């Protein structure tokens, strides 16, 4: 029972990490770091909540989250890909803007409610028969739509990246953009398009926290999880399979901290349990020797040099 609980929580908490980290893999493979990931998560969480609350429809919530992601991505992508401004600098600006904007617009829509507004959570969808399996049944086959989507996206991401022409172009844009350019394919368009797509995924990942997990929106709802997804992309070696493994590990850490917090175990101070994912990232970043870094990661493609 305990194991089943942990496993279920792990899969649940790893859902947004999978989606976000996969998005980061796709976009970094084209050579662009999406530093705005934390802010995009937040905008997604906000839009998902607002859409669902106003219309009462979770579907609209999900669509709004995607839209918010697309808009944030368009801003980030335009400045970094077309105007070739520094990615870390631009991303930081958006990450500062996002919480201000989200809170402000929340206020615009809802004024100052006495109690935090709430929406219904995305329902869990049990898969017939499979959800009754012992131990793994509930964890893998009785989750909400986003969790299923996350697994499907990982598989699709792997297939697209390594088995299709689109994937070939994406991988080439980060490994040698000149080759893509020389082939007559517009590098900027490939990068911008992937940024938009990835940010749409980030929006969904953010919405998981507001309408898939908590049912409300607060300023701290993401609390650095976007950065965890960013780190997982790195630690997973820019590969969807690595993302799957990494997300489950971090999901487990998240789940454990929830369990420890609620079970009242006081052996370990709670603060340190919360810090585990971050410490884990630091350790893994240091321990990993060889990385498969896309050769042109973070470098804008400028055609007319000199």
């Amino acid at each position, binding site marked *: 029972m305990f194991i089943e609980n942990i496993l279920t929580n792990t899969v649940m908490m790893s859902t947004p990490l999978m989606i976000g980290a996969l998005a980061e893999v796709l976009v970094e493979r084209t050579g662009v770091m999406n530093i705005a990931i934390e802010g995009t998560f937040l905008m997604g969480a906000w839009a998902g909540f607002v859409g669902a609350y106003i219309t009462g429809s979770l579907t609209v919530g999900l669509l709004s989250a995607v839209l918010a992601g697309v808009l944030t991505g368009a801003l980030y992508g335009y400045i970094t890909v077309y105007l070739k401004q520094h990615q870390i600098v*631009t991303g930081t*600006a958006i990450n500062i803007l996002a919480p201000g904007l989200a809170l402000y617009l929340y206020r615009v829509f809802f004024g100052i409610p006495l109690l935090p507004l709430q929406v219904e959570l995305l329902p869990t969808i049990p898969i017939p028969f499979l959800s009754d399996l012992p131990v793994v049944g509930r964890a893998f086959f009785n989750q909400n739509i986003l969790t299923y989507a996350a697994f499907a996206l990982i598989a699709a991401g792997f297939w697209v990246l390594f088995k299709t022409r689109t994937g070939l172009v994406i991988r080439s844009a980060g490994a040698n953009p000149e080759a893509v350019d020389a082939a007559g394919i517009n590098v900027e368009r490939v990068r911008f398009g992937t940024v938009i797509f990835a940010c749409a995924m980030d929006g969904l990942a953010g919405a998981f926290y507001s309408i898939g997990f908590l049912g409300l929106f607060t300023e701290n709802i993401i609390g650095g999880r976007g950065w965890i997804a960013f780190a997982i992309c790195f630690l997973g070696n820019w590969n969807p399979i690595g993302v799957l493994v990494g997300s489950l590990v971090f999901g487990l850490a998240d789940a454990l901290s929830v369990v420890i917090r609620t079970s009242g175990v006081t052996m370990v101070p709670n603060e340190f349990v919360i810090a585990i994912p971050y410490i884990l990232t630091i350790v893994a970043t*240091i321990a990993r020797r060889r990385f498969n870094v896309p050769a042109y990661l973070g470098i804008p493609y400028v055609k007319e040099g000199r």
Partner: protein
Amino acid sequence: MDRKWRFFLALFPVWSVFLGLALSGAMLLFLDLNPLDVYGRMVAFAFRDMYNFADIFAKAAPLILTGLAFGFAFRAFLFNIGAQGQFYIGCLATVSCALYLDALPGFILLPLCFAASALAGGAWGALIGYAKARFNANEFLISLMSTYVAVAIMNYLIRGPLIESKGEYPQTDVIAPHAIIPKLIPHTRLHWGFLLALLVAALAYFVLWKTTLGFQIRAVGMNRESARYAGIREKRVFVIVFLISGAFAGLAGFMEVNGVQHMLVQGFNPAIGAEGIGIAILGNAHPVGIVFAAILFGALKVGGNMVVQTSPVPSSIIGIMEGFVMLSVILSFYLRRRIVTALEKKKLRRD
């Protein structure tokens, strides 16, 4: 290049600040507020009396330091995204000194707090530099993650060993009066720390442009490969830069704890690191630019807070202003580059 163009371009950061404020002002329309009215009141509040005016500089002091923390490392093309964490570690060090060593007289205790915050922040930063130098770890990721670890340490200490005597709220006791930085202007919050921050900025300038250390830092920043070929030991530079950068952020903790708050409250000032990045960008990673940008941010805060307290304008507008100002500064970098290129082309054509 034409003289009038040059003048126009030099003022670009100023234009972009106005653009950012205009965009934020447009947001106010959603709440049926008149932006001109709001900005008018902001300015009025900021200059209403000595207390508020002085407060701008009190607010600017720690921002100068976190701005320098990012800007200094940026000169070596290193990304210290972890100033927030280094700031908290600095806060913890200085508040511990002030609380436990309060038997010491002020003229010893204050320098001790100063040194403790700088050393603690610097050591925390140097660890990042060491990870970069020794393991070739990505400093962006590590400095980012180190902030969350620092937050955990702070939360643990403030809820545990450092908690106030009443044990009610997650905050420390108020520090002894002689551990407080003396006021620069009486009856305001402006303290001598502001001048200290200016001094630190001057020091940063001196180190970067007048010393061999700065020479190495800038060479590493502008072309790491050529610097290596020139026999510059880049790993040493990484550690030293992060040490200094972290010390700057740690000192910001000294300013806030000993200068303004006089205690340490859990999770206070949670955006000072990110604002430092914005300030460094606005100030073009130059100490002088950083000082001016920090004063601007200080003014936005003071004016913004007053408006928020006295009218239905929500406090989130301050974040929006900061964000839009940063974005428009970034856009101005792009525009300036475009204009310079176009002017050069035009000149060639005329020849």
